[in-house]
C-alpha cells in the first residue's frame, strides 16, 4: 500500500518505522551523542531514532531542536527519514542546514492526520523523492 505526503526536503530512504507517542523537543529530548530519546518523561524514552523512518506527530519547546537535528546528521546518528504531522519548520531547518554544510540530507515529508492514522505501527517503510511512502 502506498501513501503520499507533501515533500519538504526531497530524498529516497528506507528504514524501520518508529512512531513518537507524544510531542517532542529534540533539544533536551534526544541525546545528540547517541541518537536516543533521553527525556525520562517521554513515552519513547530509551528508543534509538537512528536510521528509522521517524513519525513525529508534533514538536514542542525549543527552537534549538534544529541544532540537535544538525548535530545528529553530522555524526550519522539521524533518522533515515522524517514524517511530520504538523506544519513545523524547526526539524526541517536542521536538515536544510546539514545539506548546505555537506553533512548529507534525509527526506522530510509532511503528512495529513489521515495519513498519519493509516501508517502502520512497525515494519519497514520506503520514502521516495515524490513523497510516496511504501510499506510492507
Amino acid at each position, binding site marked *: 500500500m502506498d501513501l503520499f505526503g507533501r515533500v519538504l526536503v526531497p530524498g529516497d530512504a528506507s528504514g524501520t518505522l518508529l512512531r513518537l507517542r507524544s510531542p517532542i523537543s529534540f533539544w533536551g529530548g534526544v541525546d545528540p551523542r547517541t541518537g536516543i530519546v533521553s527525556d525520562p518523561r517521554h513515552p519513547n524514552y530509551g528508543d534509538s531514532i537512528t536510521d528509522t523512518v521517524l513519525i513525529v506527530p508534533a514538536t514542542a519547546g525549543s*527552537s534549538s531542536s534544529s541544532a540537535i537535528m544538525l548535530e545528529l546528521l*553530522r555524526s550519522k546518528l539521524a533518522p533515515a527519514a522524517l514524517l511530520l504531522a504538523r*506544519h513545523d519548520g524547526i526539524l526541517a531547518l536542521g536538515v536544510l542546514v546539514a545539506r548546505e554544510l555537506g553533512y548529507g540530507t534525509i527526506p522530510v515529508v509532511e503528512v495529513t492526520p489521515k495519513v498519519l492514522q493509516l501508517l502502520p505501527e512497525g515494519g519497514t517503510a520506503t520514502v521516495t523523492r515524490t513523497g510516496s511512502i511504501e510499506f510492507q
Partner: protein
Amino acid sequence: MAMRIIVDMANMMGAERLTPITSAHIDGCLYHGDSGVEFAEHLVRRDGKVCVPTTLNVGALDLLNPNRVHSDSHTSEMAHRLMSAYVKLGCKPTWTCAPYQAGHRPGLGEHVAWGESNAVTFANSVLGARTNRYGDFFDICCALTGRAPLMGLHLDENRRATVLVDTSSISSALKQSDVFYPVLGTWLGETAGSEVAVIDGLPSEISEDKLKALGAAASSSGAVGLFHVAGITPEAPTVESVMSHSDQPRIIHLSADMIRATRDQLSTAHAGRIDAVAVGSPHFSMGEFAELERLSQGQEFKVPFYVCTGRGVLASLETAEGVESLTQRGVEIIVDTCVVVAPILPGTGGVLMTSSGKFAHYAPANTGYEVVYGSLEDCVASAVAGSIVRDETLWN
C-alpha cells in the same frame, strides 16, 4: 547560502513573499555541539556580514570572568569559537537575553527577526514589533539577508487574540506584587500554547520588568510568542480592539486557586535548607538591581547569591558604584551567560531558590538542582537564613 535557506523555508511554510526587516537578535551563539560552530565559521569564511543592526543573546561562557563557568576544555574552546564567529559576522557582542534593556528597541509595527523565546515575546508584546519565534541558524540567515518570510506574527490577522483572560477575581495586592507575574506567565503558556491571548484587569502602572517576567515564563511553559494586556501593551488599547474577528474567543476567568496551583507546581522543593539563590532570567535590569540593593541592605548571605545580567547593565551599575556593596554581601554577578545554560552552580545538585519563572522551569532538567520559587524578597530572606523563607500572605 543564507538566502537559499530563507527561500527554502518560506516555500516550505507557505509564505508567499519575504519582508524586509529592520533588526535582528541572534540566539544561535549558544553552543550545543560542534556542527553549530562549523555553520557559523562557514558563514565567516564566505565573508558574511549582517546588513541590519543585530544583537547577540547569551553564550555558554562568562567572557569577563572565565572562571565562573566550569566546562571541559573542548566545550570552552568551541563555545568561544562560536561566540567569536558571530561577532565576526558583524553582530554586537551584547550577550544578553534582555537586548530590549540594552538599547535595542524596535518600534511599533517594525518587522524584525528575533530569536530567543523571551526576547521574541517582549519584542512582539511590549514593543509591538513583529517577529516569529526564530531560532538557531534561521535568525542569522535573516540578519545576513535583511529578509524574513512574510507569515505568522508578521501578519495583522495572526496578531489578534483568540483567548481572553479575565483577572478580576485576583486580589489587587497580588496583582501589584512582582511575584505574581512569573506565575501568571507560566499559567498562560500552559493554557494558551501558541495562541495569542489578551489579559484584562491588570493594574495600569504595571512595570516593564513585570511584563518581561510574564512573557519569559509564558514562552518557557508554552509556545507563546505574543500576548496583549488591555490598556497597557501598544496593540491593545481595549480588549475589543485586539480580539480576533474570525474565531469565537475562548474566555477564561482566572481564579486564585488556579494561580496558586501553578505557583506550587513551579517548585520541586518546599521546605528546608537551600544551597544557592539565582535570579536574573531574563537578565536583571538596573531597576531590579536597585530593588535587590534596597532589600538586602545590611544583610549577609549564608549561601551563594547569583545575579545574571548583561554586560551593559553591569557597566551602568559600576558607574553608579552599586557593585561593591552587593559583592560584599556575597552577591556574584554573572554576565554574558546564565546558570541554566552553563555549568556555574557549585557541586552536582542541591536546592536552588529563584524569583524567575524561567529558571524555575528549566533548572531541574538543566542543572540537576531542585528548585523553589519565591519573590525577590523571599530569595533575600532565604539567602540570609540559609533555608526557605516565603511570605504566604499574598497567596491566601
